[in-house]
């Protein structure tokens, strides 16, 4: 059903975009005189920029309620359309993008929000530099090299361990301690099924990595090596062994479902996204007794979220304009306050109140996750070997 919706929106988007581009000719003249529609690469015709969001509800809300409206307000005539497609894996979206480039079709999206390193290094996304995105000057180059300068980092987050301090006084500090805690406290831990969200995915991946050599692990992060999947057997056996200690023996669907269980007090400990956890604590979605902590050596995975522009995007200039605008300090402050995400630009550009939140945190040092295709296979094997 979701796929059908996607096709319908993709088909609907093409004529809609054409109409808007047509209107843009008229509006463009006004806009260039009054508003600053002129950027580094000349006047940009107003357009509707379609942003594909692969994140959870919090990221969808960031675009729908904050960034989108603010962008239209700052630049009249421009608008943002958010495309959300549930649990579709990153590799399915990438493959669709690849197919649209191969067949010379409109990909139906102008910006992809996610961690699409494979797409960037595979040449599916347009190159960025300070020439077309001037604000990149404020972004650490260590975030740009992994994506080969073909995507713009715009926020960061990591998976952390959330625990309810009312019941857990000394949270586990390492993965081994965590695994021991789970078996010692049956029914008080769970993680979402890895195909339904990144926090459960990170827990599964971190556990698998425990039994994988550093060299093999690096290969799985860098690319697609199905021949190494045998390395995972021991990790999957460990996860299967935990199943009798998992809350209700069920793995909820989605990151948010796990937060809800933490909130109701049904579970005491769970892997959660740092941004979702912090935002829930701020809004009352989690009781204040819930604390966040990171495991050490290895930590859970994390990293920057990127905005990528498909090489064949229909509104490339407008998309570049939006990406550049998102890197401005005001929008970065919004991301920090709304999403509790890590900023992508140097924190010294942000207000001192915001700076104090991030003392000692550095988005560029987070442990990288497996490549998208390895992750897809990991989810599939988990379903067979652990959930079954």
């Amino acid at each position, binding site marked *: *059903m*979701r*796929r059908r919706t996607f096709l319908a929106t993709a088909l609907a988007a093409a004529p809609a975009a054409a109409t808007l581009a047509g209107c843009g000719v008229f509006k463009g003249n006004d806009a260039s005189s009054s508003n600053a529609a002129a950027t580094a690469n000349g006047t940009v015709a107003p357009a509707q920029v379609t942003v594909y969001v692969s994140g959870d509800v919090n990221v969808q809300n960031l675009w729908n309620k904050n960034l989108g409206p603010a962008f239209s307000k700052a630049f009249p005539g421009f608008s943002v359309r958010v495309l959300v497609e*549930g*649990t*579709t*894996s990153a*590799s*399915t979206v990438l*493959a*669709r993008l*690849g*197919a649209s480039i*191969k*067949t010379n079709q409109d990909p139906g999206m102008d910006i992809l929000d996610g961690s699409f390193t494979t797409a960037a290094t595979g040449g599916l996304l347009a190159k960025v530099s300070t020439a077309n995105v001037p604000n990149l000057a404020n972004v650490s180059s260590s975030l740009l090299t992994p994506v080969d300068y073909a995507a713009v980092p715009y926020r960061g987050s990591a998976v952390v361990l959330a625990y309810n301090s009312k019941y857990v006084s000394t949270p586990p500090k390492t993965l081994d301690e965590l695994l021991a805690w789970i078996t010692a406290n049956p029914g008080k831990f769970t993680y979402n*099924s890895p*195909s*339904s969200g990144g926090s459960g995915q990170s827990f599964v991946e971190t556990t698998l990595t425990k039994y994988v050599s550093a060299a093999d692990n690096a290969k799985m992060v860098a690319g697609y090596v199905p021949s190494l999947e045998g390395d995972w057997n021991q990790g999957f056996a460990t996860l299967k062994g935990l199943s009798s200690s998992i809350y*209700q*023996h*069920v*793995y909820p*669907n989605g990151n948010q479902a796990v937060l809800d269980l933490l909130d*109701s007090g*049904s579970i005491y400990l769970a892997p959660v996204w740092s941004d979702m956890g912090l935002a829930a604590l701020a809004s009352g979605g989690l009781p204040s007794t819930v604390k966040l902590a990171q495991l050490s050596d290895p930590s859970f995975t994390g990293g920057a979220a990127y905005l990528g522009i498909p090489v064949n995007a229909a509104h490339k200039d407008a998309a570049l304009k939006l990406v550049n605008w998102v890197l401005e300090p005001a929008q970065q402050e919004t991301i920090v306050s709304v999403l509790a995400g890590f900023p992508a630009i140097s924190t010294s550009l942000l207000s001192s109140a915001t700076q104090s939140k991030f003392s000692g945190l550095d988005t560029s040092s987070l442990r990288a996750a497996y490549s998208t*295709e390895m992750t*897809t*296979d990991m*989810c*599939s094997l988990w*379903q*067979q070997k652990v*959930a*079954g």
Partner: protein
Amino acid sequence: MTRAHRLRALVMASPPVLVAAAFIGMPVVSAVMFTFGYPGGFNSILADIGQHEHLVTGTGGTLDAYRDVLANPLFRQSLWATVLVTAAATAVVLALSWGIALYLRLAGGRIGKILAGLAVVPMFIPVVIASYAILEFYSPNGFLRSLFAALGWSNAPVYGYTMVGVTFGQIWVSLPFGVLMMTSGLNAVPDALLEAARDAGATPARAVRSVLVPMAKVPTTITCTFTAISIIGSYTVPYLIGPSSPNMLGPLMTDTFQSFNQPQQAEVMAVAIFLISAVIGAYYVRANLRGAKEGKSK
């Protein structure tokens, strides 16, 4: 029928047939071709997308994708779960809708009407909302367990995230159709036949067995087949209420297609569901033909 008549009938029927062929027939054929490993035509993009595909370059197809899926224990468990849930839920829906329809037909009155009205309520509640409500109702801290706990039974079973819960959900969703079908089916039996049976000295049970059951054969078959087919391909109810795994084939197919990026394997599973539904559908077609024949002979 003369030849001109037949030709005119064919022309009149052809637009829907063509639409069905273009929008249902062709995708089905191309999907089935893909399961045998043909990557050409409509499948070329999908073949570029998927992981773990079994493709052929020549004309001879391959059964490797089928072997792959059949060797997957998750598929076998899910298939089994799907068949069991479908059989159980269909049986319960049939029993409940027959019971309500029979009460309404024989006793009537206000209670019968209220019962039939209540049974149709699920039709007006969206499936997503109903599924979530059912999940919460049977959850460890849900209404049912709270009620039992208050009555002194602290170990009442939990049906949230179980296949039993999924079966309850399927019954909830399918009951309205069954009740509507059976009440109208039993109401169509003329009073004269029941009165004649009574005059001949038949007990109410005998009248039901010898008059109502045979007269309502067609609506009964339709209730059975439609309920079973809609349950076998369902997605929302098992996705929301069911366990992570093994669940029904609907969620497994979606996961395989989207999350695991294995479109070929997902389509093999779809073929399996299609084959089971085709067997059920055959009963429906047979019942329909029989109904048409009886209609004609009158």
